[in-house]
């Protein structure tokens, strides 16, 4: 019966079995050893990395008054394949939306298979009140979840430009910094942007387990692998919020800037850009709408004028020239130049206003004599000791730059303009090398022509004079909690002018207030030193400029005020600067000056208002 031939078939069957097992082992090697993507795929299936957003750093003013803090906001997330039929009208009522708009939101979400089980942002930044209403009803809407976020909240409705705002990151932000993910917030301008790295803190992550239907099945490893978020660092600003608010009130109805600096430190005490807006307008769901409205406003309220507006410095620049001429020994304080209602040289004539003739240096500043500085500049640029006008001009330009003009000061803001101081090369190009003289460029003597400054550069000039020859780069952050401000803000920057030359110039500024062009700026029992200015405006009425510091000895505040289209410097900019200094130094305004304050507060110089 035993069939040898058939018995061998046992071996055939055993062979088949072994071959199958070998094939399976090879496939296991392929799947488990040579293919790491399966592991990644399994992890991305199972782990939901839920971002834990840190609280953004708070901001305080120099007197520890809270300026900027966080309020909770709530995003509505939706997981599409968990949504069951629900009462749409009820839902829309709870979140204050129209039904068609809600439907358009839902339709906008990507519907691919990969998206249907992950939470997607449906509606961002619900207020606490809206959240409270929705939360009561949330159980009726399976598939909808709440994600906690924070929004900025402001104690005072001012300093919008300085503080800056927070917005959703753009594609460019995400590409530039891999910290950001789509939907994150970041500082978009002002302090919020410059100190973004300090303020943002560090995001944390909570690792959740997600089942095949996208349902959360608890924390991975009981949360041991989670990373807690680290709150952002709090900032103490050098801003005096009361002074800032007062400045914004004074500038109401006017276009321009106010910059106040503490000369001894370079700290910015106030920085007003007018017209302004309420910083809360750029928070939350209305941000986009309000931003668009502000952006389309022809007066450009979004322009950060103290840092970005470019004006000829006008007569305030005479102060710089007076110092440079003394340093270069072109003049002494006793030098006098005649003024025949202006400066006349051949067919060239620079006009001047009525004032006593043949002034010395103090008088020239006190009365803002144009002729004096034209003579001075000619004496310097045409002086043989430099070898050429070009060389003389370069010496002059370097001296001007040492006061902080022509380059960025290095303020702690993201959008500073450098102004403009021409160099000899510029004139060589215009007029040809060696074919220009002092008279060719004479308007720079009185701060007109090619020289351009920003309000903060002018305020910095006031601080440099107040300090008798040095300045610190202006900055708005005084202290970072658990951090350090940039060491550059502790480094003195010296002007090329010797301190001994400052006394007569300062005396001139003092006399301008006592008995000169700046009498309107006088404050009882405070030695104010000031200088008026008028920036020529080819497009309309001239801009009113005032630069001052006080008190004369041991100055506490240096200030620059620019009011656009307001005419002579003493009329508008002077009183505003004076009131600001009085407010800062004395805490309140003398009742005798109430009329001045009221006039400043109630005058509207807006181009649109003037039409009526």
């Amino acid at each position: 019966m035993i069939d040898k031939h058939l018995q061998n078939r046992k071996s055939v069957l055993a062979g088949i079995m072994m071959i199958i097992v070998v094939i399976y082992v090879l496939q296991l090697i392929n799947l488990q050893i040579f293919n790491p993507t399966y592991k990644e795929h399994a992890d991305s299936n199972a782990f939901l990395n839920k971002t834990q957003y840190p609280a953004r750093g708070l901001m305080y003013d120099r007197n520890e008054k809270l300026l900027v803090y966080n309020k909770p906001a709530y995003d509505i997330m939706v997981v599409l394949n968990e949504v069951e039929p629900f009462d749409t009208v009820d839902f829309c009522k709870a979140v204050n939306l129209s039904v068609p708009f809600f439907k358009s939101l839902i339709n906008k979400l990507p519907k691919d298979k990969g998206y249907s089980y992950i939470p997607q942002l449906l509606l961002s930044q619900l207020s606490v009140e809206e959240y409270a209403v929705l939360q009561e009803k949330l159980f009726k809407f399976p598939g909808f979840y709440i994600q906690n976020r924070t929004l900025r909240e402001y104690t005072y409705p001012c300093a919008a430009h300085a503080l800056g705002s927070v917005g959703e990151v753009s594609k460019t932000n995400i590409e530039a910094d891999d910290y950001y993910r789509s939907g994150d917030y970041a500082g978009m301008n002002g302090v919020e942007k410059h100190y973004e790295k300090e303020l943002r803190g560090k995001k944390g992550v909570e690792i959740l387990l997600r089942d095949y239907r996208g349902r959360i099945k608890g924390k991975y490893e009981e949360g041991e692998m989670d990373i807690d978020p680290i709150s952002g660092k709090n900032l103490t600003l050098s801003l005096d919020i009361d002074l800032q608010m007062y400045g914004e009130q004074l500038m109401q109805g006017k276009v321009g800037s106010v910059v106040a600096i503490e000369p001894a430190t370079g700290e910015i005490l106030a920085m007003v850009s007018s017209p302004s807006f309420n910083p809360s307008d750029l928070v939350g769901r209305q941000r986009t709408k309000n931003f668009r409205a502000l952006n389309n406003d022809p007066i450009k309220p979004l322009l950060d004028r103290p840092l970005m507006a470019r004006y000829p410095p006008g007569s305030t620049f005479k102060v710089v020239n007076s110092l440079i001429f003394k340093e270069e020994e072109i003049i002494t304080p006793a030098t006098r130049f005649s003024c025949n209602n202006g400066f006349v040289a051949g067919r060239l004539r620079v006009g001047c206003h009525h004032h006593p003739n043949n002034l010395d240096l103090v008088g020239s500043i006190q009365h803002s004599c144009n002729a004096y500085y034209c003579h001075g500049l000619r004496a310097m640029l045409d002086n043989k000791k430099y070898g050429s006008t070009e060389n003389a001009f370069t010496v002059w330009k370097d001296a001007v730059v040492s006061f902080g003009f022509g380059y960025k000061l290095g303020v702690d803001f993201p959008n500073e303009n450098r102004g403009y101081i021409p160099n000899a090369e510029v004139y060589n190009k215009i007029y040809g090398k060696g074919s220009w003289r002092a008279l060719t460029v004479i308007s720079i003597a009185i701060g007109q022509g090619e020289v351009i400054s920003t309000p903060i550069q002018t305020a910095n000039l006031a601080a440099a004079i107040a300090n008798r020859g040095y300045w610190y780069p202006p900055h708005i952050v005084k202290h970072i909690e658990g951090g350090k401000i940039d060491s550059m803000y502790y480094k003195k920057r010296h002007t090329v002018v010797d301190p001994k030359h400052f006394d007569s110039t300062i005396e001139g500024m003092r006399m301008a207030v006592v008995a000169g062009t700046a009498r309107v700026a006088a404050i009882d029992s405070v030695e104010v030193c000031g200088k008026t200015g008028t920036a020529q405006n080819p497009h309309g009425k001239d801009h009113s400029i005032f630069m001052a510091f006080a008190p004369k000895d041991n100055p506490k505040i240096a200030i620059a005020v620019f009011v656009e289209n307001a005419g002579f410097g003493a009329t508008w900019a002077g009183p505003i600067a004076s009131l600001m200094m009085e407010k800062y130094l004395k805490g309140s305004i003398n009742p005798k000056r109430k009329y001045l304050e009221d006039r400043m507060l109630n005058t509207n110089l807006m181009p649109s208002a003037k039409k009526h």
Partner: protein
Amino acid sequence: MLRNIKISQAVDWPTILMYIVLVIMGWISIYGASYDFEHPSVFDFDQNAGKQLLWIGSCVFICISLLMIDSRIYDVFAYFIYAAALVLLILTVLFAPEIKGSKSWLVLGPVRIQTVEIAKFATGLALAKFMSRYNFRLKGFKNYLPVLLLIITPMALVLFQKEAGSALVFLAFFLMLYREGMPGVLLYLAGCCVILFIIVIKFGSDLLQPTADSIGAILAVFFIIITQLGFLFVFTKNLKQIKYIGLGYVFVIVIALVVNLIIPVSYLYFLAVAMFLSVLYLSWLSIQLRAKPYVLIALFTIGAVAYAYSSDYLFTSVLQPHQQMRIEVLLGMQNDPTGAGYNVNQSKIAIGSGQFLGKGFLNGTQTKLKYVPEQDTDFIFCTVGEEYGFWGSVLVLGLYLAFLLRLLHMAERQRETFSRVYGYGVVSIFFFHFAINIGMVLGLAPVIGIPLPFFSYGGSSLWGFTILLFIFLRLDASRLEKMR
């Protein structure tokens, strides 16, 4: 009855030991697969792992009872058991409620049984009984017909239950028939049919440029040519003719390549001409040498080409798009994220993510979070792959191989045809389940939902496999009785 005392010595302990280890490993896998991160509970009898523990406990009694029963009873009652199983299958078709698209559960009060599990060992017994008749030889239509009927009848009834996977299991008996004398060439031809179909469908739409030949067709032709030469070697041993024909093919292929250097002409034309010439030559040889195999091989060549061509035609022109889709998913050509393609994809992710060492007991996220469907039944091997990684998977495969080889060895050592036929039936069924199930989970075999013996959750299948095995162990234990 006296001999029963010796059972404990005569029974094959290595097999029982492997059985116990497999069942324990299976239970651990089920425990892992049904473990819930949120509600961890060790012995909850409402949970699958708890229930499976009850099934395993009851198996102890089944095993002991089966070993106690006199082995002759199976020989005597084989047909009766087979008839009873058929009745149960019919009752199932008639009365079973539809659960998840299949009607395979017979509900008797609180007990639910899958009658196909009974039919498996019953068919094994019936075949053993029939084929152990005096002077039975697996030859001729008269002997084949009853054997085929014994296999096809339960298979058809299971098909009526809409359980295609379980019905296919009965094909496993053909492995046993092969051992009992069925020509191996039949087994090979069946294999050829499957392979040709897969080649033609799977690669049919990939085109070889610039001639735009279907790669599937070219692969099919080469497969047929190699098979033709293989048959020539096995059945004629005429190396000289094999050399001639083989060189003929090489010659035609070289010509085709040269021509294509100049102008693109379909390679299939050349191959078709070559095969046609080979058929003519084989027919001529058959007449010349007066040998039948040559003409048979010629017929095989014609048949295979016709089969391949009609498979392609059937697939592309007769089947509806949704039917095509199902076959494509089955062959892994389509990623159907909701259907079978999704299951296999997630199953491969689960196993692949286990890597070499595995994620550790109860740490498999893919299975715990239910990304793998049917993870405690058909896809139970995913838990092994994910939590124990490569070494664990290889261990399980190795244990299975050892188990199967042991059963094979035992089946062959039987002195009685009845025991041997039954034994080969048992090996065949276990092998079929093992190969198809693991192959499916690894993405190598079509998605046919059949359980992995001793691992997959389910009382009916555990009982069914246990009974199947222990009847054989009892028969094996008494293989020496006749000697005394």
